[in-house]
């Protein structure tokens, strides 16, 4: 058992996948960094992406498999689709999910659809690793989550792990999966730690996790929101309110059963998602609950999300934008008293 950061866990999963399967390659901007020439060995690989997640891979596995790309997402995302169809297992890095716009065609129209529209002969085993989330004072174009943008599209799978354990186990699965997977890493979680067994097995996609058992209210928390949910649950526990926290971990496919079981038990539910509210994971999950668990509900489903605005820059505004433990506590109290 070793304590790992999310960042280390992801790097470990990449190294392990590279070692286990020679068809795994990685493409992305600055994933190595440097001058790309042998005489500059010391500077090569010094960056490993803006968060250092891929550091060491270029040195370890070489430039043939670890390809530092031009700033041309449509080019190398499309290349990943073609490489995946013909036998490789490419992982491509979208430096920030906010850059999705410049290569969305490759995801939405090619990666997601080739199998379906060309008669089921192709498969596209590629993974898009991308960085999401507010709380970095990074402004409107480097802070979104956009989970539901991808979860909306048939043919794509969407994974958003909370802790290092899940990050490693789910990335191993995502790389082994034969469908295109969007693997979303939250920038504010990279340095958080937990125990990760060295021999951790891949965690199947589509299986959620009960992070805390409880009896009075179910909190369905998306990615970083688990942090606030756990914090809120502690305070509420001291008031005699028992919270159950569910982390779905993957959003397409979604572990509906796990969510429904919890809701049927507690009858009261809050969905918390850092995204903008309209057509979000929170709206999707709450609508599923209303549709499938209505007779069990003792009160209407509550949603806590960011407001319907871009992510603001200035700290007081950004802190206001992000859902908080305080908002969860207030919502739970309201539900309990309802």
């Amino acid at each position, binding site marked *: 058992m070793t304590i790992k950061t999310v960042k280390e866990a992801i790097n470990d999963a990449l190294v392990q996948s590279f070692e286990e399967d020679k068809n795994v390659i990685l493409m992305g901007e600055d994933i190595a960094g440097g001058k790309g020439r042998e005489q500059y060995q010391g500077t090569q690989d010094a960056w490993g992406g803006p968060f250092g997640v891929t550091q060491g891979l270029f040195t370890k596995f070489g430039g043939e498999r670890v390809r530092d790309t031009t700033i041309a997402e449509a080019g190398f995302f499309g290349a990943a689709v073609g490489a995946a169809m013909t036998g490789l297992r490419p992982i491509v890095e979208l430096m920030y999910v906010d850059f999705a716009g410049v290569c969305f065609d490759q995801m939405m129209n090619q990666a997601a659809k080739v199998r379906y529209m060309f008669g089921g002969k192709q498969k596209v085993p590629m993974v898009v690793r991308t960085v999401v989330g507010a709380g970095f004072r990074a402004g409107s174009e480097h802070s979104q989550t956009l989970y539901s943008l991808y979860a909306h599209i048939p043919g794509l799978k969407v994974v958003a792990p909370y802790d290092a354990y899940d990050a490693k186990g789910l990335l191993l699965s995502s790389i082994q999966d034969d469908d295109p997977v969007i693997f979303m890493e939250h920038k504010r979680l990279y340095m958080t730690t937990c125990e990760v067994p060295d021999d951790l097995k891949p965690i199947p996609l589509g299986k959620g996790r009960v992070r805390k058992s409880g009896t009075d209210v179910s909190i369905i928390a998306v990615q970083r929101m688990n942090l606030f949910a756990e914090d809120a649950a502690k305070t509420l526990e001291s008031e005699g309110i028992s919270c159950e926290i569910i982390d779905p971990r993957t959003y397409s*496919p979604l572990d509906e059963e796990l969510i429904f079981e919890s809701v049927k038990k507690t009858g009261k539910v809050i969905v918390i998602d850092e995204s903008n509210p309209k057509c979000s994971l929170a709206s999707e999950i709450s609508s599923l609950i209303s549709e499938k668990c209505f007779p069990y509900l003792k009160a209407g489903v509550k949603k806590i999300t960011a407001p319907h605005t871009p992510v603001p820059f200035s700290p007081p505004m950004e802190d206001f934008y992000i859902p908080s433990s305080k908002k969860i506590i207030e919502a739970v109290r309201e539900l309990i008293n309802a």
Partner: protein
Amino acid sequence: MKIEKEKINWIYKKLFTIRYFEERIKKIAKEKTVPGYLHTCIGSEAICVGVMAALEKDDWISSTYRNHGHAIAKDCNLNEITSEIYGRSSGICKGRGGSMHISDFDRGMLGSFGIVAAGPPVVLGAALQEKINKGKKMSASFFGDGAIHNGAFHEAAGLAQLWKIPMLFICENNGYAEATATDWHLNTKELSDITKAYNMKAYQGDGNDVFEVYKITKNAILESKKNEIPIFLEFKNYRFSGQYEGDTQLYQPKEELENAKKNDPIKIAKENATNYELDISEIAKIQNEALAEVNNAFTYADTQPWPKPEDALEEVYVNYPPEYN
């Protein structure tokens, strides 16, 4: 360049098959008996056939929504192609693609993409795979003149040159990007001049002469593989059809259309037949065979069953999440 008799016959057969097929489709489009959009490739037969004659059977290609000629020249099953256009369950994509997406992965078709310039990056990826795995297959992306203004093309071109990826960028310069003339939107004198920014090798050829297309492509494949470089090929021809069937083509000057007929690729191929030791009776025999195959394909498609409505739910994923069933 000596071309085997068998290949010459194949080339003529494919030229006629594509022409007859597209003429038939145009007729059907007028009768409105098939669903969906139809983009015919009359005028680009020589490019489809010349390039495919130079490629090996299992080499990788990408095509576009104007794909009937590529699919036929890539030896896709004609009955299945027609069935697909008719939306039947025996279609080459099981009825899920339609005319714009006719593609057979088993024949090396990575896909026929409805989005302009979607193909070049995908083919770059297949070519990258061949390079990494030291494979032997060539990779070629077909696109129209409109695609050269799109970022996806430029990004693929830049990466292909940077990474020394053997592949072909094949531009069918047919004079029109949808309804707008190519030369109106071109910033360079020649279309292929745009490759200069990437220091990419480029060759131009007469896209109406199937043997010129074949020879240029054959040499480009050798050069691309030997020097590990991408090569851009620009073949000029004329789009006799509109952007799609039903297009009134009012934007194409009548005299331009009339002039272009002098260089009709089928006409040129017939004129050149004697250079390749084909006589009139052999040509007639090949024409008859091609016509019979096309007729059969349409009869076949017409009698094929529709897919079951719920077949729409199949093959979105490889590992199907149970919630989607």
